């Protein structure tokens, strides 16, 4: 009995690690290929080690232009979507209003609709309305599919918040604005920040919806798509590896900070508890 359970435990963990290997294989390949000098333009095989790709990431200047454009689009779309989505989340968690089911549907549906359908329908609208496609139609589309994710993320944070903290502030004669500025906002901020990061990564990486609404504007995913037919410059893998490293650093930093904050909070409450105990 004990042995079979021991085996069952190890068996599940073993499969899990194999699957994680499958999931991380492509990233390792991307990192490896970023140091590759390909045999020819259309070859995807590892050929020869070189640092050139990292030393001259912008050797193909189209690619760096596309990366810059993607970052700008991501930035604008993130700011707009985060503001719109956060306002909606506050309304949904903190206020009663008529038509809640309709609003919930409007927020949920974009997350359940295939990207293909959202992309083609926006294209149909822009063409019917005579709107020329380009940079701003991409921004509009990205805000559209990011808003729902912002609402969901901020809503989760707001719903888990202790209302008594705000009540305490109000009891201590803080005005509505002061309470919001000093209590509510700092407490919700982690939710808003993760919503913004999620929006940026969704926007930066979007291909399908962008492809239908870009006109002749080239974002980084659009560039990779086009280059896949002509031959991929190895610098694409440099960008891929750098993106991965930056995201990993952000996650590491936030978890470290979270741990530090938790430790600080613990350190602050322990003496408080002790004094409370001795007082009573």
């Amino acid at each position, binding site marked *: 009995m004990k042995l079979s359970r021991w085996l069952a435990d190890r068996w599940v963990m073993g499969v899990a690690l194999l699957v994680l290997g499958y999931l991380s294989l492509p990233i390792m390949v991307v990192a490896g290929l970023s140091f590759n000098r390909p045999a020819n333009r259309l070859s995807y095989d590892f050929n020869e080690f070189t640092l050139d790709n990292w030393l001259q990431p912008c050797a193909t200047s189209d690619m760096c232009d596309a990366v810059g454009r993607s970052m700008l689009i991501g930035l604008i779309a993130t700011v707009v979507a985060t503001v719109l989505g956060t306002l909606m989340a506050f309304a949904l968690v903190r206020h009663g209003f008529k038509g809640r089911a309709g609003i919930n549907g409007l927020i949920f549906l974009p997350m359940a609709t295939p*990207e293909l359908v959202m992309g083609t329908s926006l294209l149909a609208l822009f063409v019917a309305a005579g709107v020329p496609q380009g940079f701003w139609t991409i921004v509009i589309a990205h805000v559209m599919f990011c808003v729902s994710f912002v609402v969901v993320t901020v809503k989760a944070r707001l719903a888990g918040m202790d209302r008594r903290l705000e009540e305490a502030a109000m009891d*201590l004669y803080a005005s509505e604005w002061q309470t919001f500025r000093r209590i509510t906002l700092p407490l919700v901020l982690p939710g808003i920040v993760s919503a913004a990061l999620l929006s940026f990564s969704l926007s930066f990486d979007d291909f*399908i919806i962008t492809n239908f609404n870009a006109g002749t504007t080239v974002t980084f995913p659009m560039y990779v798509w086009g280059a896949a037919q002509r031959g991929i410059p190895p610098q694409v893998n440099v960008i891929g590896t750098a993106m991965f490293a930056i995201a990993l650093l952000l996650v590491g930093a936030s978890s470290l900070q979270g741990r530090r904050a938790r430790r600080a909070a613990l350190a602050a409450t322990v003496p408080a508890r002790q004094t409370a105990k001795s007082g009573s």
Partner: protein
Amino acid sequence: MTALAHVPTGSGQPAAPPASRRGRSRLLPYLLLLPGAAWLAIFFALPLLQLAAASLYDSDGSLATGYDMTWAFGNYPEALQAYWPQFVRSLVYSAIALALALLMGYPLAYAIAQKAGRWKNLLLVAVVAPMFTSFLVRTLAWKTILSDNGWVVELLRDVHLLGPDGRLLATPAAVVLGLTYNFLPFLVLPLYANLERLDPRLLEAASDLYASPLRAFQKVTLPLSMPGLIAGTLLFFIPATGDYINAQLLGTPNEYMIGNVIDSAFLVRLDYPQGAALSFLLMAAILAIVFVYLRKAGTEEVL
């Protein structure tokens, strides 16, 4: 919190807000909702109506001359007839990919939720880590992994799972493998969130009552994980069916899915009525499958 309990709570009952403020606070939720809701109404809902209209345009028109609205419902059977193989292929590929993803994703989610101990967060990061880098770049990496002179193909040739000239790239297997890989995290995360709340004492109780591990899984773990399983399957299946990046980069026109056809209808052939009709057929197929699946899964959960 303990400290707060000692703080005198001011005047006790807060005074009722003055009438003008109450009027404002009734309007406030609508003001907060307006910009976001308007954006979604104009750029999500309205386009769907326009797409529905475009699918009924006269298919003899063109982008240059303009389309006439002729309520051409015939566009639907025509489009389906012309691209039936791609349509079926989309559903079959994503169904196989889903089956593979369940086989891999369930043990993974279970191990992280129940067995990982203090490594839990690290393993979770490893699950989402692929999404840190570009979807297209990752998919292209599979071209290297599955390449004809790569070690995977050589290994499979050595053990005679592939013929001496057999290949993986540009085959259905490559496309299905790519789909499985790309959408696996979407299946694992909701499943993990669900399994994390599974009380291990329930499994101990099952084993105390002489249930084999397999039986305990069937009777306890699986039924309790149904909500996570349903959410994960849908989050996997919906984008996988509509995907055409994997078919384009890892396959050939023989592996093209409905997305490839819709892409070319809108961007290459400029046949908007057909592209619109196919988009709606895709959405209808997905909605129908989701609906049937939710009903079936729902009853199983009750049983």
